[in-house]
């Protein structure tokens, strides 16, 4: 079987593109990730991931309409390709396999957390923005 490699961030981006369906371009993808996951995304990181996956053929893109707020520049819409879909499936599958392999004792630590009262927060520690 062909090996699909997806980084954590790449996976998020790929999923978001899939979620946004016909409306996935730079700003919308970024906003969506930031809102959903409550984490800050830099244009650089996002674009790097997008272009890398485009090169790997997980994504394809085409230029769309221009708007005034963009200073007359066109948007680039991304779509998940078949390969991209396969990669997502593969990632999910492997993840599930791993999940199912984890024995229950591994969760012991959560009790310790509860007793000390320190709860893990969603998202990355130190997220400061107010979205």
């Amino acid at each position, binding site marked *: 079987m062909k090996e699909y490699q997806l980084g954590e961030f790449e996976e998020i981006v790929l999923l978001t593109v899939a979620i946004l369906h016909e409306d996935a*371009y730079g700003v919308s993808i970024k906003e969506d990730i930031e809102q959903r996951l409550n984490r800050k995304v830099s*244009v650089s990181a996002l674009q790097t991931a997008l*272009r890398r996956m485009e090169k790997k053929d997980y994504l394809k893109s085409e230029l769309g309409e221009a708007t005034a707020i963009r200073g007359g520049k066109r948007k680039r819409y991304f779509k998940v390709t078949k390969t991209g879909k396969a990669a997502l499936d593969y990632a999910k599958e492997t993840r599930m396999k791993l999940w199912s392999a984890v024995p229950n004792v591994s969760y012991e630590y959560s009790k310790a957390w509860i007793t000390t009262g320190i709860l893990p927060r969603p998202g990355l520690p130190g997220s400061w923005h107010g979205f």
Partner: protein
Amino acid sequence: MDNNRHSPPSWSTRFLAWFLKEDYYEDIQGDLEEEYQLLIKSKGLARAKRWYSWQIIKLFKPEMAKKIEAQNSIEKETTMFKNYFKIGLRNLWKYKSSTVINIIGLATGLAAFVLIALFVKDELSYDRHHEHAKNIYRVTVKNYTTQGELSRHWAFASAGHANRLKDDYSEITHATRFYPWAFPDISYKEQEFLGEQVIFCDPDAFDIFSFEFIAGSAETAFPDVYSLVLTRSTAVKIFGTDWEEKGVIGETVTLARDGNEAPFKVTGVMEDMPEQQHFHFEYLAPIRFVEMIMGEDVANNVGGNYNWLTYIRTASGANVPELTESANKEFWDKYIGEFQPGVYARDYYDFVFQPLLDIHLTSNLEGEFETNGSIDQVYIFSVIGILLLLVACVNYMNIATSHYSRRMKEVGVRKVIGAFKSSLIKQFLSESLLVVIISLPIAVMLILWALPYLNEFMDKKLAFNPLVQTDILVGLILLLMLVGGLAGIYPALFLSKINLVQALKGEQSMNAGKWNFRSFLVTFQYIVTIGLIFSIGVIESQMGFIRNTDAGFDREQMLSLSLPRGNYNPETFRNELLKDPKIEKASYSSRIPTGRLADSWGSRFFKGDSAVSTDFRLPVVTIDKHFLDAYGIEILAGENFREGMETVLQQDTTSVGYYIINDAAVKALGFDDPAEIVGKKMGYGPSEGRIVGVMEDFHFESLHSPIVPMVFIYMDRYRRISLKLSADGMQETLSRIENVYAQFDPDTEANYRFVDDLFNEQYQNEERLSTMIKVFAVIAILIGCLGLIGMVGFIIETKLKEIGVRKVLGASTASIWMIISNRFMVLIGIAFLIGLPAAYWFMNDWLDTFVYRTSISIFLILMPVFAVILLTVGAISYQTFRATRVNPVECLKDE
């Protein structure tokens, strides 16, 4: 909305546009701007701006950035360069004759340039090693005539100047004199060294100049009057090579002169003074000692007796022009005042403070301690050096492009395979670099071979060892890159431009008929060649003019001999010499022709009974009654000195004078006929008497200066004796003269020079200059010729088909020859119009440094053109002959 729209920081956007891949730019910039506009609303302008720029900076990473031109990895690049070098080497090997021409041209050009650069660098580095060099000035004195005209500008000052200037002006922090004229005998144990040039100086000398001490120190150099500082070589000379182990500090040596002796303690040893310094001293001793011997009067003299080389150091930031002005305003009034009522000393003297760094290249004053260099020479050599390098580069360009047809197919194939223009340029540039790199070892060998000759000829100690001298190594590498680039860039552009279709078709008529850059190159070479040939012609004709000018006195087989020291009757010495049948004539004098007219007194001329001071300087030479006869100088009117016509010139002693003046003095006194002035009354210094004779004008000084009025008097102030020798058995005569000399003075060596040698030495600078220019010009011309031959070859190569067609149609070799040479004649014409005026202007300037100069004749102007035409015609004939011998079928069958 558009009205209050804020556009994002423009420099950030520009930066983004600069680095980001083109096909990413539009949407990414759009995204950024969209979000930016949203951010302005939510977070404010300042934060939005910061965010925008910060995002762009984050985007600046390799994946996002445009690929740098050649997207290839370093590995790929080096492989390509390996390939270029390989192809380059193969081509060099294949076309051996043009390779040899190229390499010879470049190697000679490089070698000549480096030699010139070494010389120029050396000339420019004089005196710079002194820590305070920028604040050191030499005190020089100008003398004026009664008329206010400059009479002499002395390199030396008076004994009393240094200390008084230092005391009066706070800007002058240090002052020293050097007195170099003592020449005492030095003895240590049983060794004795006669007439050593011990220089006496003030203790400030060590604070002004940075002399490097090996033993002792600058601070402890002069603890008392009897101190002596040596240099390394004099320490070796006196104490032997193991002086350092012996510990010479504190050793006592004896200085003796004229029967007086004084013990001196060695207090320090300095390194030998560096070559690049405008004076070289071997011993330093306190000047107080000389003052003690000479007396306070001499030490305090402020008006004359210019024997004291004087230097001052100013506080940094001192305004020296202002200082000079106030010194000239105040000094002379303060220390001399009036000579006579109404005659102010300040009108007769001026100080000039000469910056130390200017002395070597620009100073040529009366009595320079050592012969200085000349800035003109530095300029001339720099120009020639650069021309040589350019000519060598142009030569390479000509040859490289002239063989372009050989490379056309290669270029075509490379283009088909997909070579960019840029990679072709790289290829040809690396080829030119290759040729330069190959030329370098040959150039280095040439330099090493020629350097000793250059050193001997220019009296220099230039060193060339790139392995040790890193500045030279770096310079060489830069030179390589420069020449490689300069020579290669045109062929590279030219060859990479070749049209693909033409190249593969083998079409050879590219640009052949047009005026283009190559015509410019050839014209440039013609300009340089014409200019240089013209310059050589002018220099040669001026040197010939000097050599053939009748100086007006007889200098053949004339020997000038120093006088023995001690007390003896001059007549006895003269008679002793004249006993030798090979010595025809002998005559004493204070100075001899070829020397300088440096002694003078004030003079007066009597009209009726009233004396009128002469308004010109009238220098004096003291001679005996045989002088005019010995030197073959004719008396125009009156008579020669006879017994009893001796004049005594001594301060404050009136005496009767007898004068012989030259024709120039007659004219200057307002007479036309020499006969009229004979017997007229005049006064010279403290003497008064009659003019007894008028002699013809002759060049006592060199042809650089005009014949000035002068006066001869009969008086024993002799320094030399001139001997007219027979031409045969010169060597034996000289040794007999030495024997006679030894009878009178067994301690010193007879010092003699031939007057015609002295005469020629006056033009030594010009001789050197002309020889050097000639050598380098010939090199440039030869390199140029190589290029020319290549160029003609190129033109013919491009016209091969035309020649073929013409031959088929029945053209003669001669008519084909005409077609080709016409083009060159036009170029020569242009070069003539540009090159000659430039060279004429340059050389006319040079000729102006001579008072007696040749004129630039029409021959000199036309000669270079004929030479160049001859050369071109030769090259064309040779190449045309080759071209027309080719069977037309050979060159026409291609199509």
